[in-house]
């Protein structure tokens, strides 16, 4: 007569069902524990290897993601920035975002934005000096600026501030390619935001953000303006756009911010961050 309960291979039917069951549990318990001990021991020994592997995977993932982003950005058509129509298009793009500004702010912004874009398209120290200090009554210079300038053999004592900035400027670029400039931008990519946060993170992390792979900050000779500790009293305009530069064949985001100086009714350059893929470092 065939058994109604086929026995599993490896186990003979125990004489006592309970003791057999206990023996079986003990066997499985020991085996499971041995597997756990072995696994944990090996994982402990290979900890260093796991860290290296994780680092390798993260680097590969970052490189792949950068490639995907770059392919996406490079697919957009661009127009040269140094044309009047391009500047006009950019000014039109910021109009919806400044509806709540006062008339003085709007008028000043339209003027300054055109100057800032012209500067970025064709930088020179004189224009930079005018952008930063023209009709501005209060600004501070970081102490290290003077030290930096005095240290170069291009600087003599008795120079004016403008001459010092020019010397700083000249010391910044020694390559034959000349001063980096923004050569083109992607129409329709402009994003604008407004806020009171003076931190650098606010420049490329807010609503104007277009993302980035690595943010490279512009050079800062140290001309700064008073910032209130109360964010509500500060006024910054954050701008993000996809652009091309003279230093790279890629299209990638550039983020910059302008600060409102209420006393002087002027917008002044605050900070600029270019994506590392543009290899673009200017004075801002």
């Amino acid at each position, binding site marked *: 007569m*065939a*058994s*109604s309960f*086929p*026995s*599993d*291979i*490896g*186990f003979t039917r125990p004489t006592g069902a309970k003791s057999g069951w206990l023996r*079986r549990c003990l*066997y*499985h318990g020991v*085996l*499971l524990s041995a*597997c*756990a001990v*072995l*696994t*944990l021991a*090996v*994982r402990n020994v*290979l900890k260093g*290897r*796991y860290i290296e*592997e*994780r680092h*390798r*995977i993260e680097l590969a993932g970052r490189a792949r993601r950068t490639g995907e982003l770059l392919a996406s950005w490079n697919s957009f058509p661009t127009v040269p920035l140094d044309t009047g129509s391009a500047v006009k298009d950019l000014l039109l793009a910021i109009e919806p975002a400044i509806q709540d500004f006062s008339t003085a702010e709007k008028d000043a912004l339209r003027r300054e934005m055109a100057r800032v874009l012209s500067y970025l398209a064709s930088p020179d120290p004189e224009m930079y000096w005018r952008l930063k200090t023209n009709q501005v009554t209060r600004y501070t210079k970081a102490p290290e600026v003077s030290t930096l300038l005095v240290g170069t053999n291009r600087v003599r004592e008795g120079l004016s501030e403008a001459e010092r900035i020019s010397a700083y400027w000249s010391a910044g670029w020694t390559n034959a390619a000349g001063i980096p400039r923004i050569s083109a931008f992607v129409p329709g990519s402009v994003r604008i935001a407004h806020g009171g946060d003076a931190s650098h993170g606010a420049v490329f992390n807010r609503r104007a953000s277009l993302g980035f792979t690595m943010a490279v900050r512009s050079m800062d000779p140290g001309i700064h303006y008073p910032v209130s500790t109360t964010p509500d009293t500060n006024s910054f305009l954050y701008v993000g756009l996809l652009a091309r530069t003279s230093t790279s064949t890629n299209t990638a985001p550039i983020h910059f911010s302008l600060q409102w100086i209420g006393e002087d009714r002027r917008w002044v350059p605050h900070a600029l961050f270019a994506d590392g893929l543009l290899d673009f470092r200017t004075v801002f």
Partner: protein
Amino acid sequence: MKATPLQFPAHGFPVALGLLFLFAAAQKLLHPGPATMALESIDVPTGWARALVTMAIITEIYLGTLLVLRRDLRYALAASSALLLAFTGYLWFLTTLANPPSCGCLGLTGIFSNSRAEALLGLSRNVLLLWLIHWSQRRLFPSIADVKAHGGTDSKPMMAA
């Protein structure tokens, strides 16, 4: 009992499955990165992701050992089914994502440039394995109905042969 052509594969399949589990466990022990980071990419905290991978390794070694040694086969095959069902559910979830991560299964990471194709392959593989387990269980541990269905001479179960 007369040996059938399907008897030997049915006997050998548990061992093959056990070796597969042991291989998968070894791969995850040596290269846990893809499996761990796949879990992290679906918002599983890092500590939990590591613990889940560790548990998967322990379970695979445990079941692989049982299957290779052919100990308590009925239980081992049933537990293997449960484990594969869990893995299959996870792979199915990955295929529903817009950008699925590589699952890190069986060391096949990178065999496809598309992680979704990799997950679909894993899904198909697991479904096949589940069917083979079911087939093997029916051959190795036929039910009374199976025995009766085979009539007089084949009425004895394979295991008693």
